[in-house]
């Protein structure tokens, strides 16, 4: 069996074993269902095999030449995606945008890129998951449900492993879930705080007030019965190291900035009270953190970088969506993303009117509507490269099989496109 790193989600599990016999996957150990599906889809007959131009099969060389041609003749290009790409591919994406004087944005600008940016500005510490494993005795999932999004989060890092200061694993830790509904993660949580939709800030304020010694004697707090709230507060006060993992439930709903800022205030307050506290976002796509970090390293900005002028520019209230809706682009290069399926109708309609080039390994609505589709290899299975785990640890991905004939990684395709621009 070959040991590999799973790219099913941003946990990048490195203890996965794959058995390949006669070019077929016959067994996969330790990967969850999400990871298995990802690995298996690379062996699927449903994947993309042929480059197309307006639905007609063309050769890879023609596809790359055509793509370069479209990009060279565009008024302004949006280059977008990259949370499912290696760090090296992201670098090439930035380079291409720079060459074209285009606009570079990644899926992280709609996801936890915002959280990472704010956390860095607020100077929050960024511990490794191994540190949480060894020392954290109170895990809080806030607006996150790893039982259905990051299946192995609790078993591999945060809840079940026996660490230095938590020798009994789950029996040495307290697990709390905060969400707007009963989740599968709550089934195993000691404290199940079901809040009413949008009332996160109220709950955080009540916690802070308790920490400062001012007790609230209301019947319930943000929908949480007082009895449940007090039970949680007692455990929180007795914790040594609290780890808050927040999900899209916090940033995907109304006023994410306000909620995040409050949550970070709570982190600071606990630290002030000698209770170590950290907060990490539950990034989804396997290299969302890479899309954020690499863009920051290459341009000085986390996402939404405009190369129209000689130097890269970024503005707080500008991202690819605001520019799209203003009709700033005539061409869009999408790498490893399906914006036509995942974005709101108004945005999707705008995208569908652009000249579209898609690099992807699997069929998608966006790939099916694009002018030029270029199939690529599965990074982490058919191509190597590096990625950043959800806590920012750099992980080398592994190549375990060759891609199908004449199929290259997205990094290689981007290099070829850049070469063809000259």
């Amino acid at each position, binding site marked *: 069996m070959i040991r590999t790193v799973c790219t099913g989600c941003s946990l990048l*599990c490195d*203890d*996965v*074993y794959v058995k390949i016999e006669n070019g077929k996957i016959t*067994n*996969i*150990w*330790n*990967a*969850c*269902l*999400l*990871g*298995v*599906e990802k690995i298996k889809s690379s062996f699927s007959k449903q994947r993309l095999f042929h480059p197309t131009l307006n639905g007609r099969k063309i050769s890879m060389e023609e596809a790359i030449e055509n793509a370069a041609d479209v990009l060279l003749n565009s008024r302004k290009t949006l280059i977008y995606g990259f949370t499912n790409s290696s760090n090296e591919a992201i670098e090439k994406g930035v380079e291409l945008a720079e060459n074209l004087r285009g606009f570079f944005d990644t899926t992280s600008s709609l996801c936890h890129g915002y959280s990472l940016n704010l956390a860095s500005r607020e100077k929050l510490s960024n511990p490794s998951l191994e540190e949480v*494993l060894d020392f954290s005795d109170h895990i809080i999932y806030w607006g996150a449900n790893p*039982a*259905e999004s990051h*299946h*192995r989060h*609790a*078993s*591999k*890092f945060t809840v*079940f*492993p*026996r*660490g230095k200061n938590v020798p009994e*694993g*789950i029996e040495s830790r307290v697990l709390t879930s905060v969400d707007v509904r009963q989740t*599968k*993660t709550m*089934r*195993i949580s000691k404290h199940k705080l079901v809040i009413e939709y949008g009332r996160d800030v109220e709950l955080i304020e009540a916690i802070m007030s308790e920490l400062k010694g001012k007790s609230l004697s209301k019947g319930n707090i943000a929908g949480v019965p007082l009895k449940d709230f007090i039970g949680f507060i007692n455990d929180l006060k007795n914790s040594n190291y609290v780890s808050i993992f927040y999900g899209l439930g916090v940033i995907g709903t109304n006023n994410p900035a306000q909620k995040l800022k409050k949550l970070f205030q709570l982190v600071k307050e606990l630290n002030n009270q000698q209770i170590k506290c950290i907060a990490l976002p539950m990034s989804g796509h396997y290299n969302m953190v890479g899309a954020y970090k690499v863009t920051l390293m290459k341009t000085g900005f986390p996402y939404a970088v405009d190369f129209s002028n000689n130097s890269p520019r970024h503005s707080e209230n500008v991202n690819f969506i605001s520019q799209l809706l203003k009709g700033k682009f005539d061409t869009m290069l999408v790498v490893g993303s399906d914006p036509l399926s995942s974005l709101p109708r108004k945005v999707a309609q705008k995208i569908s009117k652009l000249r579209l080039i898609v690099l992807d390994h699997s069929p998608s609505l966006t790939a099916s509507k694009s002018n030029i589709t270029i199939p690529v290899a599965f990074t982490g299975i058919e191509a190597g490269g590096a990625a950043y785990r959800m806590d920012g640890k750099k992980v080398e991905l592994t190549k375990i099989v060759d891609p199908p004939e004449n199929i290259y990684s997205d990094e290689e395709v981007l290099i070829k496109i850049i070469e063809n621009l000259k």
Partner: protein
Amino acid sequence: MKVTPLEIYKLLPQTNCKECGETCMSFAVKLTLGEAKLEDCPLLTKEEYKENYEKLKEILKPLTEAFETGLRLDEEKCTGCGNCVIVCPANVAAEKEVARGTGPKGDEVVFRVENGVSKIINLQRCRRFPPDRINCRVCEEYCYTRAIEIF
């Protein structure tokens, strides 16, 4: 049938005399795990606790027969999260790295996730079986999807 420590505790003398080496509550926990015997409590065998003793014997009876019980894993419900793999003490005993959250690489464990679902590959190593015969139910307790059932 699941027996809770609290249920046991209510029937214990609750004097916390520690003659058995424990408080009554932790003695109750040990009883539910099969790690202690009712006779370890010097008070229970006395006449005044006879009724409680008999009741406790009845409640704990299924536990002493734990080796006859089984473990069922519904693969349709399982998502391969590995909670059972890591929480299982027999898995940890078989492979040290499992204690640290790493998936097993050998064949000695009770649970191993294969093709995205947990499989019981060595049921006989489960602590419910002899020689341990401990009423351990952690895999069932911490399963996200209630795919595991101990009967």
